């Protein structure tokens, strides 16, 4: 059965750790880093569960800073 797979690329230097993407994601793909911060001191968003991503773009749309790029593919 064909399955939709997605992948996100997060500009972690630009991210301010607002968490809006984390709560918008329907598949719990994202979380804020618990181990590192970026050069401005923000705990940035990471795709901690990348296999779960379905490429829906919810995270990218709600991101106020335009940090997320989303790719999508239909896996046969």
């Amino acid at each position, binding site marked *: 059965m064909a399955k939709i797979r997605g992948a996100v*690329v997060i500009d972690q230097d630009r991210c301010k750790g607002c*968490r809006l993407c984390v709560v918008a994601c329907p598949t719990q793909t994202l979380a804020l880093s618990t181990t590192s911060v970026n050069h401005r001191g923000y705990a940035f968003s990471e795709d901690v569960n990348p296999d779960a991503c379905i490429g829906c*773009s919810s995270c990218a749309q709600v991101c106020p800073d335009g940090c997320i790029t989303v790719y999508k593919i239909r896996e046969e």
Partner: protein
Amino acid sequence: MTKEEIIQKGSLAYEKPSLLNNNTMHYCPGCSHGVIHKLIAEVIEEMGMADKAIGVSPVGCGVFIYKYLDIDFQEAAHGRAPALATGIKRVLPDRLVFTYQGDGDAAGIGGNETLHALNRGEGITIIFINNAIYGMTGGQMSPMTLMGQVTATSPYGREAAIHGYPLKLAEIAAQLEGTAYVTRQSVESVAAIRKAKLALKKAFQISMEEKGSCLVEFVGTCSSGWKMTPVDANKWMSEQMFLYYPKGDLKDITKKEKS
């Protein structure tokens, strides 16, 4: 399939609009201003108006929009963007002219100008970011502050006897002969963002057709001023702000034309 393979072989589903440049936005984490900037960039891009759009940004956190969107901008004094936009639109009628104003700006110090520009039916769109507070100066009460809302200048909450009532600017604008389209939107969810984008596009189109002036209110968050996390601010906005400021179109003369 690995993440790298999906990126390589898959199709691009979302990237930030190209009119939004790479300057780091100064807004606090989670601020609605950023999402609204992205929508403006997307709509102008889709309309092919990048070379013809002129924004006017007065005082408030959103003044710095000119640093982030790669289109022409003019700064204005506090509350005076509609007058400047009027002048620009009258001299250059083929341009897409819009203002980007906060609630302290458009409803407070600039309330007079906002209403008169709208009532003259200028071919401009006023984008009005209502976060119920003076964000930039540290969270003082604005005309849009809700009853009971605690701010730096209403520490016991807004009280009618002392502070009067929140101003329903969009409802007033909808009563003016000069307005063609008045709508209230928000950007807290994907569904809200989708609707808001359509509304913004409609306003820009109507203002280009010079059918009258347009007001697009965005109910937005100011997590710093409200002293909440961005996630809680979206929740508070949905539960409290939308009750007093209900979303949707308040006036649309293009609907009358059709029927």
